């Protein structure tokens, strides 16, 4: 990429969303034997916005998040479009992808110990990305120190010289967050970043993540199985089921007015500590992946409202209340 190209890309990026995924389809293999993974996934993350991606196992939420970095399963074919800050991810070559991952988008994972090289010092981990961008080593070290202070590591100067095993899980996740934000990305992809942490540690790390994101204007895609967590911290939430988006709603609306039968069923299946003690209602069957889902609406074999017309075609997304929902009869859900 030439300097000229970079400049134009940067110009369009300031106008574009942090992440735009439109009609993303993903399949392994081709023809009759193709295994579909994602179908028509559309996700938008504005600048500085926190967007949740919620679903159970096999819903495709992690695959969707990874697509923003151009990371696809081996042998998978992607259709549709994925843009990060104006950069076309699906069309990007190796160099452009590397540049994207280095400067525009960062990802944090569930297990910080798997994301960080155990034999290298924390200081090396934090300066690596900066050095790769050509930041002088002294300046990179100063930035790393500053970042560790911001994420609330005690004795940040000493921490730079320590190894990952000398940190607890919560502290190490803070280090990983510092590393992810070190390059000033426009987009942060957080894949279950607090699932492995204790609840009180989770609250701390979320507070930190939200604070850092707010001051820097980073867009965040927050992938989680935890509906309560998504609703508590996200501006908007997408609910995924079997490789498709079934509902998009404002974080707060998700609880008060779920529009998709699946969202409603998830809420009724989750025990809560708030309000009166209510019976939980189990959803029959088990979560499906796209490849094993029934034709038409993928949720219809578990849905209490399903009817013959649910089998005809995959329901189109339509507006209902404050949600966008892929269901043929959302009015019966909210009733």
């Amino acid at each position: 990429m030439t300097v000229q190209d970079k400049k134009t890309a940067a110009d369009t990026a300031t106008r574009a969303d942090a992440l735009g995924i439109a009609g993303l389809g993903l399949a392994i293999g081709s023809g009759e034997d193709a295994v579909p993974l994602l179908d028509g996934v559309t996700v938008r993350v504005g600048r500085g916005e926190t967007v949740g991606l919620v679903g159970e196992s096999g819903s495709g939420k992690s695959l969707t998040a990874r697509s923003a970095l151009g990371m696809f399963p081996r042998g998978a074919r992607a259709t549709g479009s994925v843009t990060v800050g104006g950069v076309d991810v699906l069309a990007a070559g190796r160099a452009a992808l590397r540049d994207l991952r280095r400067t525009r988008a960062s990802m944090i994972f569930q297990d910080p110990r798997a994301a960080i090289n155990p034999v290298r010092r924390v200081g090396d981990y934090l300066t690596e990305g900066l050095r790769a961008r050509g930041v002088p080593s002294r300046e990179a070290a100063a930035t790393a120190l500053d970042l560790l202070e911001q994420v609330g590591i005690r004795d940040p100067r000493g921490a730079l010289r320590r190894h990952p095993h000398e940190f607890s899980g919560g502290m190490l996740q803070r280090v990983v967050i510092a590393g992810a934000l070190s390059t000033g990305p426009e987009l942060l992809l957080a894949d279950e970043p607090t699932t492995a942490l204790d609840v009180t540690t989770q609250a701390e790390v979320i507070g930190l993540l939200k604070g850092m994101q707010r001051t820097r204007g980073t867009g965040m895609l927050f992938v989680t199985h935890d509906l309560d967590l998504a609703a508590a911290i996200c501006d908007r939430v997408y609910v995924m089921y079997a490789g498709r988006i079934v509902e998009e709603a404002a974080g707060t609306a998700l609880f008060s007015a779920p529009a998709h039968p699946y969202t409603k069923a998830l809420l009724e299946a989750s025990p809560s500590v708030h309000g009166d003690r209510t019976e939980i209602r189990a959803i029959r069957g088990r979560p499906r992946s796209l490849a094993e889902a029934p034709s038409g609406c993928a949720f219809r074999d578990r849905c209490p409202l399903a009817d013959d017309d649910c089998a005809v075609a995959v329901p189109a997304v339509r507006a209902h209340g404050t949600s966008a929902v892929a269901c043929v009869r959302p009015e019966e859900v909210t009733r």
Partner: protein
Amino acid sequence: MTSEPVLAVSSLVKRFGDVTAVDGVGFELMPGASLGIVGESGSGKTTTARILAGLDAPTSGTVLLDGEPVTGRSRRARLRRARLLQMIFQDPYGSFDPRQSIAASIAEPMRLHLPGTAADRRARVAELLDQVGLSERAGASLPRDLSGGQRQRAAIARALGIRPRVLVLDEAVAALDVSIQAQILTLLDGLRRDTGIAYVFVSHDLAVVRHITDTAVVMRHGRIVERGDTERILREPRHPYTRLLLDSIPVPGWDLDRVARDRRALDPSS
């Protein structure tokens, strides 16, 4: 029988070297009751559960099962304990023989503990599979062919086979998807109602504990910091740590500053 606790634990202490993992824990469990042990990592909740099941020996303290102390590692003592108390783990995959069918695994404890012929056991296994909602086909499968939820059902069936009085569940639904977790919780509710078995439900998840227990103890650093009716603990927490736990649960309009205040109230030094 109704007034005697089926499980009584007092002054339980477990030290690993210099570390005291469990520090003076005591509680009672009545027949058919359900007690929650709530805590985070390092609270000592899992060590307590392991001591109950005889997987770890306490440094000091007593465990009474059905009024009699359980001590020693003799075959007789282990059999008596297992006959009365069974344990369910977070991931039952590791506790099934990978080469044995689910039905054979479920029959195993019965062979060890109960008189009866192979035909009796087969009939009982069929009854148990039905009770936990598994098909005959699932019973004939190997553990690796079942989903996480089905394996947890199988583990419950195996534990119930010898009709124990107490089931110790250590994070038994923590690894399951929400929709599957609800199925297992509903199953556990029904089983307790139908069989009068008592639960010790160990979990970090207050919402799940609220659903499945009547009373609870909150553990921190090996000690019980609060105990009482589960509903009372959730509505009027008395210990600052319980308050911190409660405020740490995400909710719309989540107040993270309040969580930070709770933390300062708990450890004024930090």
